[in-house]
């Protein structure tokens, strides 16, 4: 009896493996290997900013994940953000969204008063099957975001089959129903010609993954967001690279190549 069942399972797995409903691969090989393919599509994911200054990095990381989730689908991203955050780190700027690969026209933005409203809007959006991804930003130790609230979000994500991201600033990681939890810090970018800042780079720590390999220590990665590919890329560092211009060479490329590529950059 078990044999036909197993073969059925296998054939089903073959038939559906191509459907991206299971996981969202991040694109960086070492990450995806550790995650077992990627993060759960129908799940709740948290990105904590390590310090207040890392707030744009945490939100940027979540937005990049959302971009991965939306890839190919003509579905909108819904973004709920408490007003207080815009005073803290500025208001979302659409050309900047385009610069990380999201289509500003496909983003609906909800300016809410507080965390409670952000969560209400997030649940409402997360339940809607035609929303491709939901991003909720929270500011400070938001008491409204408790186990119940996170479970409600996780449930909404599971029913609608689209991810919900919660980006948090000024809060320490706490237990929740999240499928994955990340701590995000801005990382020095790979410099371009004339020591210009390059693509967005992050140092990310995986604090938790539901159903992930048990007993493993939390992992740390340095990744860079490649907008053109819409994927994260692994980056290797040595300790000395943190603050010197010397180490900021393109990985797997010679400095000369990088320089000639960027030589024609202009402004206008």
């Amino acid at each position, binding site marked *: 009896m078990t044999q036909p069942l197993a073969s059925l399972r296998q054939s089903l797995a073959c038939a559906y493996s191509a459907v991206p409903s299971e996981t969202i691969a991040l694109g960086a090989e070492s990450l995806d290997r550790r995650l077992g393919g990627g993060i759960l599509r129908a799940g709740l994911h948290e990105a904590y900013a390590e310090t207040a200054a890392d707030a*744009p990095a945490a939100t940027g990381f979540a937005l990049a994940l959302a971009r991965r989730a939306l890839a190919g689908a003509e579905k909108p991203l819904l973004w709920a953000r408490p007003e207080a955050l815009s005073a803290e780190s500025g208001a979302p700027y659409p*050309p900047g969204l385009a610069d990380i690969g999201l289509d500003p*026209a496909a983003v609906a933005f909800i*300016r809410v008063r507080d965390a409670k409203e952000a969560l209400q809007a997030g649940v409402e959006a997360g339940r809607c099957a035609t929303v491709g991804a939901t991003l909720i930003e929270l500011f400070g130790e938001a008491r409204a975001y408790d186990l119940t609230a996170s479970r409600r979000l996780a449930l909404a994500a599971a029913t609608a089959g689209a991810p919900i991201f919660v980006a948090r600033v000024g809060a320490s990681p706490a237990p929740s129903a999240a499928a994955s939890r990340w701590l995000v810090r801005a990382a020095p970018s790979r410099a371009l010609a004339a020591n210009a800042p390059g693509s967005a780079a992050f140092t990310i720590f995986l604090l938790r993954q539901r159903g992930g390999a048990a007993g493993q220590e939390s992992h740390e990665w340095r990744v860079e967001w490649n907008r053109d590919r819409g994927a994260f890329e692994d980056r290797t560092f040595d300790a000395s690279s943190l603050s010197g211009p010397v180490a900021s060479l393109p990985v797997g490329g010679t400095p000369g190549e990088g320089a000639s590529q960027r030589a024609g950059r202009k402004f206008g």
Partner: protein
Amino acid sequence: MTLADARARAPHLSVAQADPDADERLMLRLAAFCEQFTPLVALDPPCGLILDATGCAHLFGGEAAMRACILQAMARLSFTGRAAVAGTPDATRALARFGQEGVTPPGEDEIFTRPLSIAALEAPKETSVALTRAGLTTLGDLADRSSAALTARFGDETMRRLTRILGREDARITPLRPLPECMVERRFAEPFLDLSAIENVLRPLIAEAMGILERRGEGGRAFEARFFRTDGAVAALNFETGAPSRNVEALLRLFRLKAESLADPLDPGFGFDVIRFCVLNAETLAQSQIGFERQDAQEGDVADLVDRLAARFGRERVLRFATHETHDPVRAASYVYAASPSKPNSWEKPEPGEPPLRPLFLFDPPQPIDTMAETPDGPPMHFKWRRVRHMIARAEGPERIAPEWWRNAVGRDRRTRDYYRLEDREGHRFWVFREGLYESETAAPRWFLHGLFA
């Protein structure tokens, strides 16, 4: 009579300061209450209301019965009223205030108003005195004179009033609120108290209104549910949809959201007499077959979500990004209501291979920073923002953005901005600018932090 005289006559007289504002508020509340009889209600200062009962009277069993019904409702609220029914607003006012209350049969306004004293004209005192001296005591006396002579003697205004009171000239009232596109209501013999069953009352009402709209080939954009309480209070809930809609369940859901977001919950008090559902605004909506085109249904879903969020948080909070043709980085993007009509997408795609040139978050207004630069026109070596010093490891710029001189020509002087992309040693990326060209525009350029990159 002076107050002292009045007190001498009635020692127990209670005295209060006149408060015209409060009186007006009271009249407005009474007007709202009277909207249960007809949607066309206007204030008639100083202390009257005028109701246009055209096409409504039959609902109450005729004009006489309607008049009685209104007086009774007023009496229940402890108001004594005088009410008349006549062909024109002015005749009605004159009859109610100076004549016989009651119903004037159609076309007989003049017969009923002729015996009224000239006080009914409410003309200035000298006019009244002059008329009385001339031996004219009733409106009838006046009406028999040549109007040219009277106009010459007493002015246009008095004569216009006369012709209107006599019903020779008609004037419409200007209602407090515009007439809705469509309106349905339930009246209850017993006051309706059960809030939990309110949706069961609203559902058939909304369905009925949607039926009316469907026959017209329209869908509603703005809606209102009105609850008339027995004690005269009126509660109104307004909501809107982004696109014309005839979806009863979606509208009920919006109503529910709106009711939940109320600061004071809907309080039936001693009960609701009348529940009314109005479509305030309707637009053409083609008859459609639901479930045929999946694409439409999907778009409908997001539109539906936007409506629900707008009902809960207010439409100024549910937004999308709009783009403008300008090189001014601030004016290039704005926020508009998510369901407002959109232009074709014209967001510029970033060039492949470029790093992000525009920040993810933008400060408005830009934040002043203290900088230290090697050369006056070079990028900063470090800057201080919010009491934290950022040591710059990488920099690119300047990207010079000149002010749009054709704009704000008279306003404050706008200076050229040199923008730099900076990255500090920890990897935080910033968008800063130096305002004013060194030496040519200013001797000490100021620096601002304008945005943050991911």
